[in-house]
């Protein structure tokens, strides 16, 4: 594992015009660790993750991946450094089948033609490896349940062999049983050595899958704690800064 964290964000700052979104955020992530990133709406979680995923560029501050200082101009550069992200709403194409979604952008071909058989066989194997259950890899994603879609989206991101996987509200609007399977999938991904950052408002999920929690408040990282040291009250207090100095 070594001493060098998988990801280090140091003093990240970002403003959109007059609006200061991030004012000096620090964050670390280790290999195989599931880090919960919590905070109220507008705390800056999504902006921070967009910076790590290359969708937004920081004004100042440093990103280190495996100790190497990097700066991402676009999502492709972040992907090149094995950083994957699953957005809440922008993950899948409903009118493509499961295999088509898993391979989107890197379909195997023979000459100019798709190797459909290989796509479906590999998709079935990968889904099976991650314990994701779908009726058929020929099924359109639009016909899947919310939980199945989220599982396919996470599997797709994990299928690219990322070192870091960012999940933005993966369990929002899912049924209880579906939440269980998505959380199991997250643990499964982390067990393969992938560092996972989980953004969620479902605090109970954090206790199920996270090793550590970092709280943000008004564009700053304000507290960091091992999940074992927290209970639901102290976690809520971390997010709301209850009983602590508010800015």
């Amino acid at each position, binding site marked *: 594992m070594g001493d060098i964290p998988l990801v280090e964000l140091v003093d990240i700052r970002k403003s959109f015009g007059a609006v200061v979104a991030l004012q000096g955020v620090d964050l670390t992530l280790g290999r195989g660790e599931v880090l919960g990133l919590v905070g109220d709406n507008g705390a800056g979680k999504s902006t921070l993750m967009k910076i790590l995923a290359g969708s937004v560029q920081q004004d100042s501050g440093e990103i280190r991946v495996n100790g190497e200082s990097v700066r991402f101009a676009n999502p492709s550069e972040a992907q090149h450094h094995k950083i994957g992200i699953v957005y809440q709403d922008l993950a899948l194409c409903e*009118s493509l089948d499961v295999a088509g979604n898993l391979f989107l952008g890197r379909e195997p071909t023979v000459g100019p033609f798709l190797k459909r058989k290989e796509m479906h066989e590999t998709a079935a194997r990968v889904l099976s490896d991650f314990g994701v259950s779908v009726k058929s890899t020929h099924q359109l994603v639009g016909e899947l349940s919310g939980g199945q879609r989220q599982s396919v989206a996470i599997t797709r991101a994990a299928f690219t062999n990322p070192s870091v996987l960012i999940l933005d509200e993966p369990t929002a609007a899912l049924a209880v049983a579906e939440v269980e399977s998505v959380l199991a999938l997250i643990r499964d991904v982390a067990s393969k050595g992938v560092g996972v950052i989980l953004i969620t408002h479902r605090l109970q999920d954090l206790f199920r899958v996270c090793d550590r929690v970092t709280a943000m408040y008004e564009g700053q990282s304000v507290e960091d704690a091992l999940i074992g040291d927290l209970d639901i009250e102290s976690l809520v207090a971390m997010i709301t800064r209850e009983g602590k100095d508010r800015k």
Partner: protein
Amino acid sequence: MSSEVRATRRKTVAPVTWSQRLSTPTALMFMVTAAVFIVFSISSENFFTTQNLTNIAVQVAPVAIVAVAGTFVITAAMIDLSTGSILALVGVVGASLLASGLQSVFVILICIAVGALCGLVNGWFSTYQGMPSFIVTLATMSVLRGIALLMTKGFSIAIPSALVFAQLGQSSFLGLGLTAWVAIVCVVIGSVVFYRMRFGQYITGIGSNEESVRRAGVRTNFVKMMALTLSGAAAGLAGVITAARLGSGDANSGVDFALTVITAVVLGGTDLLGGRGSVIGTVIGAVLIGVITNGLVMIGMSAYVVPIVTGSILLIVIWINLRGKNLAQLLKQIVTR
């Protein structure tokens, strides 16, 4: 959980068979077309003749060629209103070049290139300049027909029937007009590209969730621009075929062409809002329109009724389409009720 997945793996890797494909709503559209065909065959003794069936095939050819390309455009959540104007401009350009003495083969290639260039312009404005394709192609529809009218001053330019160019519209092979064979080749190529190549996969994905495809590393603007370029090239080829068949380049040809093409595409089950398309369905849609158009005339209806009927069909299928269905799905729902 893993055993459940293992249990379904045989099923997941099972290929989709042709019988499964034919059980889809496309088969129902085929049956509707066959039913209309039978009704006209009974209503008019001149409908089901070799001569008339060959006529239908030749008439359907340019619509089918452009509608196949139009399936890519509409599936990618765009639209091309300029195909009729491209058809007219290309016909005029082709006839002018032939009149200047250029060889037919070069003229045909230049005509297709002119169509592709028009499509490229449509595509560039609609993607890299962020303009809606509806507005861009509405504008170029006017511009291109204006250029064709300016070139001809409203008169048609005759194409000598002895030229290879003109033979394209008059020759036949195995009893079927050469233009129909060209359309068949285009349909086969279009189907392969749509169903078997990355380009078709990305077109469907873009119509469904463009941002997702972009984040997967696909240059979505380029793919969309190529779809409109393809539509322009197809309209160029249709312009060649139409001019060859008519024996002249006419700036006033293809006025309702774009309407017919869009009707064929939507009638075939392609979602007007993008994300779902069917090349096979489009071909059936084009044939259905061809059969209705020809059949109405054969049973003695005025030719002026034809645009009323095709316009009404478009109105109805889009009305159904915007409710999340296509005509075939609606029929399937009624049949299985």
